[in-house]
């Protein structure tokens, strides 16, 4: 066997979909309502070429609708390309749809046969794998019960066990490593590594970049139907996340702008009404469900940037990176005893860390003109995920001047695979 044998060869593949405005597939409709058959053609893939070597694992990444799932469907031959060619060497198994053909009234054992048959296994081959499949699914006690009595977790476990035990030369996986509980997930993941070690070629589509980084040697970033970048996952994933972060920033900025406009219009209207009606009407508090910002307003936070070790502004960092938060503010009225603070929260609202200049025993600042404060987080050890940062300026007596909740968002990534909230520095000593 030549080590560099090509298992998958994709050459200049294009694919377009017809999107019907109102599809009629009946004769009458076709003849009578020709206009109804108008459709829009959407290019999903605009010419993609890549090769995967035998035994290599490749991750396809990209935002929703970029064409990565379509690419996978073309590889499995569920669909065919409009132009270009795809060559696959060896038996292909796809973990795209789990539990295809499962019949609720049949027992787990019978369903293993039906399901495995859909993957193209013969009875003999299934007989040989039956024990492995049942063992892997951990459903020994329930295997002769009808599948309709299974919980959804058990159902997926059985389905995954069948799919993963089809010994394929090429394995195509779409976003399915979220099966069952954490233990089972770990088991699936280890099995996948084992399969890979045995020389199976793997192509994964996943949003979990951590998983891709752990299994794949290469990431292919598909963007609007073209390959935008390709290379080691660590580099490509970071590039991709940077890009996604920027997109997010743009959209949130737009939303904020719109909101500001709307509020200004409302304020004007309200003001107009006030002058017309009762001049003494109480000033109404803004009916905000989640109040994101409050304080006396003597000073205002105007800009936040997160800088990497080499001073580049970005939103995505690796666990362990040095991050500097740079906050600029404007002063309306002098604050003679200002305290600056930050708080970092995980997506589910857990405060991971919080501190301010008072806690850190810095003397109070007197601010009377616009300025900038920075906090350097020497080693950002939070584990992968999105984190929201609160930024605050307070006066010495603890009264907020400008408390800005969820002012900034960063994303942490890591290939290490340790779990929890934060990495704790450690060393092992085995005696």
């Amino acid at each position: 066997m030549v080590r560099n044998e090509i298992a998958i060869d994709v050459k200049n593949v294009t694919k377009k979909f017809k999107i019907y405005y109102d599809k009629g597939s009946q004769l009458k409709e076709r003849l009578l309502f020709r206009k109804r058959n108008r459709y829009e053609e959407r290019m999903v893939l605009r010419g993609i070429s890549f090769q995967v070597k035998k035994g290599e694992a490749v991750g396809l990444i990209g935002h929703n609708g970029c064409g990565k799932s379509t690419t996978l469907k073309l590889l499995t031959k569920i669909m065919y390309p409009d132009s270009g060619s795809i060559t696959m060497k060896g038996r292909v198994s796809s973990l795209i749809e789990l539990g295809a053909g499962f019949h609720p009234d049949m027992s787990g054992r019978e369903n293993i046969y039906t399901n495995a048959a859909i993957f193209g296994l013969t009875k003999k081959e299934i007989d040989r794998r039956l024990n492995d499949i049942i063992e892997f699914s951990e459903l020994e006690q329930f295997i002769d019960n009808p599948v309709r009595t299974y919980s959804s977790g058990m159902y997926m476990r059985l389905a995954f066990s069948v799919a993963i035990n089809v010994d394929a030369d090429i394995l195509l996986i779409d976003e399915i490593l979220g099966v069952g509980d954490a233990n089972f997930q770990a088991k699936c993941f280890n099995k996948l590594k084992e399969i890979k070690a045995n020389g199976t070629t793997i192509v994964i589509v996943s949003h979990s970049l951590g998983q891709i980084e752990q299994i794949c040697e290469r990431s292919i970033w598909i963007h609007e139907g073209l390959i935008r970048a390709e290379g080691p996952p660590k580099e490509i994933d970071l590039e991709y996340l940077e890009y996604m972060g920027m997109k997010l920033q743009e959209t949130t900025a737009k939303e904020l702008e719109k909101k500001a406009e709307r509020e200004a219009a409302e304020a004007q209207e309200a003001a107009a009404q006030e002058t017309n009606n009762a001049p003494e009407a109480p000033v109404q508090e803004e009916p905000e469900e989640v109040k994101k910002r409050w304080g006396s307003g003597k000073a205002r936070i105007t800009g936040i940037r997160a800088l990497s070790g080499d001073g580049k502004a970005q939103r995505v960092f690796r666990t362990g990176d040095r991050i500097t938060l740079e906050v600029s503010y404007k002063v309306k009225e002098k604050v003679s005893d200002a305290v600056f603070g930050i708080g970092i929260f995980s997506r589910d609202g857990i405060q991971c860390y919080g501190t301010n200049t008072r806690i850190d025993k810095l003397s109070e600042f007197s601010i009377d003109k616009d300025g900038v404060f920075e906090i350097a987080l020497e080693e950002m050890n939070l584990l992968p995920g999105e984190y929201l940062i609160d930024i605050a300026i307070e006066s010495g007596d603890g009264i907020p001047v400008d408390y800005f909740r969820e002012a900034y968002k960063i994303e942490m990534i890591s290939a290490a695979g340790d779990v929890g909230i934060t990495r704790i520095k450690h060393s092992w000593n085995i005696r």
Partner: protein
Amino acid sequence: MNTLREIYDYRQMIFSLVRKDLRGRYKGSVLGFLWTFINPLLQLVVYTVVFSYILPTNIDKYYLYLFVGLIPWIFFSASITGGSSSIVAQKDLIKKIYFPRQVIPISYVTSCFVNMLLSFIVIFIVVLISGVGFNPLALLCLPVIMLVEYILALGMAMLSSAITVYFRDLEHILGIITMAWMYMTPIMYDKSIVPQQLIPIFNLNPMTHVIECYRDVLYYKQIPELTSLVSSFALGLLFLVLGYLVFQKLQKHFAEEL
């Protein structure tokens, strides 16, 4: 050629689809699988009553004459009409999983075929009871005739199932076509009563030969004419190749059209 090899590799899937279909057909009914036999038996009772008392014919043991042609015809027409919707009915599988798409019409026709075989048990019993008896030599031809009919039905089912995906009306049009086809095939009458100028059309109809062969073996107790068997086999093969080629071409866009 590669596809043929692959279809063979997927034989277990065909088998399990056929089993699922046969099992599911009478699921929930009290008599269950027995209906496979009761159904043709009751049909026979109806025909016997109608053609003995209401509409007597001059053909001896007409109920048997009709029955040995009708059961094979039901298999053939079910393959075409039911087969036409078989791909559409399995759209969830087709959109999400790869397998050679031919597996679906093949397993549909096969399950109809197995049903016919089971009905043949009833036919044999009736032939025995009616006192017609068997000609063992002629009986040996029966598997060949069945095979020819199977090939023919499969070709038609491939054509109809693939085209229906793009043109759903076909399913309903086929209902009428098969009805007309039935009357254009000598099932309820003998070919000898057909006007002379129509005979060439009847001879072009592959089902004419197939039905006549069945009747030769089971009703007339004679070895069927080799020429008619060969010509229907040739026609059957032609339909199968045509059906296969059309199917192969059309199946590429199934996932998008469904």
